[in-house]
């Protein structure tokens, strides 16, 4: 076989594989979305938490949030869709809102503030990156290192 032809084919295949990898990078990126029903202060104004908000993701009810409550959902990819059934104040008629979000690729955890979103504030007001609290020092993990002591038993 023609050698250059072969290398062209190989290079092409490599590119395809890399492309698949790149696509996986994008479509497989997992995020954890935290949905807050908390009072938000933005530019000096206060947006009150809702009395109650039911969160549906993928048709299933995730949680019913009271004031100052938070729920979370995982999502693969950058588009996130949820349905909210909100009751702003006690006794109000519930309103249904469908929320479609495009998540920032680089954030692992994303906090979405419902009151802020409903008030139509700019995105950076109600969507923030979730930063986990530094782990407590007390959590001790044994130094791993199992060699000869590691007994080949157990299940497979």
């Amino acid at each position, binding site marked *: 076989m023609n050698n250059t032809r072969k290398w062209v084919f190989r290079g092409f295949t490599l590119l395809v594989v890399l492309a698949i990898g790149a696509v996986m990078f994008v479509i497989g990126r997992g995020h954890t979305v935290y949905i807050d029903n908390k009072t938000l202060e933005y530019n000096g104004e206060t947006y009150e938490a809702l009395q109650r908000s039911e969160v549906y993701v993928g048709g299933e009810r995730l949680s019913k949030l009271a004031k100052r409550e938070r729920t979370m959902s995982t999502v693969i990819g950058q588009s996130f869709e949820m349905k909210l059934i909100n009751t702003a104040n006690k006794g109000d008629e519930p309103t249904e809102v469908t929320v479609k979000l495009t998540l920032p690729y680089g954030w692992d955890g994303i906090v979405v503030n419902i009151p802020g979103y409903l008030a139509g504030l700019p995105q950076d007001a109600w969507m923030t990156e979730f930063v986990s609290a530094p782990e407590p020092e007390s959590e001790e993990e044994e*130094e791993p*290192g199992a*060699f*000869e002591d590691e*007994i*080949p*038993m157990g299940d497979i």
Partner: protein
Amino acid sequence: MKEKLSSFVASFGLPRLIISAFLLALFILAPIVGVDLPMQITNVINRFSWNAVLVLAMVPMVHSGCGLNFGLPLGIISGLLGATLSLEFGFTGPMSFVMAALISTPFALILGSGYGWLLNKIKGGEMMIATYVGFSSVSFMCMMWLLLPYHKADMVWGLAGKGLRTTISLEGYYDKVLSRFLQINIGKISIPVGALLLFALLATAMWAFLHTKTGTAMTAVGSNPVFAKAAGIHVDRIRMLSVVMSTWLAAIGILVYEQGFGFIQLYMAPFYMALPAVSAILIGGATVNKATIMNVILGTFLFQGIVTMTPTVMNSVIHTDMSEVVRVIASQGMILYALTRKTEVTR
């Protein structure tokens, strides 16, 4: 000069050289980084005395051409049977060690002959099969330790009243009987003369054996089995003898180890015990079909030196305990080196 050096490296083996240099570096580094050197030396000598007999057990089989005895656990099991039975029968103190050795001997002879018979059937594939004979026998004994009718209270599980514990303390039995015998203390260094003496005795006996008619035949069988056959040697019988000797030495070796360590370890503990012994004798300069007493001494010292010195010294230098990784890479690398050397592949 350059040629001389490279030929020296070739004959000594690069990995061996690296390991020796590494140990030397550890010894030099130790006082600099503030490690208690006398204590380390005591440790090395002690661990040497525990392990040397197990390494010595490699010699007969290497000599008879059976290769490295990866089936060492079989001998260890004989030793464990002797040890547990000796305790079960109520022997205490130094007597329990003597009895353990005595009781383990018939087991070693029986298991060793069976093992030798098997190895004679499968000449050429010894090492792999030895490995798996070791593994199967260890896992078989795991069931036996649970099922055999042991009753002595400090050996069995407290609740069930049967089934041996995973570790049995030797306090009151033969804990350190050899190490304390004639122990010499020079400053902070203490030398377990008794244990070293026993090793010296066994090593001398091995050396002497190799100078007898049968010992000569064993070396010849290992060097060229066809030559030996043509000279009227019963090759299979000699190989069998070497396997039995190796098994018995392993039995005694584990007893010596236990007396130093202070515990009998049962169940899966003997599983990988062959590997340190194999790499030790290889580090000492042995090959797949040549080994001397000097290889045993040097190898055990180097190997145990690395095992004891690395954690402390490394810890002081980089504040991480990388000793496990270093040990695994060094010892397995050594075995790998020996197995892949062209000159050692064909006899």
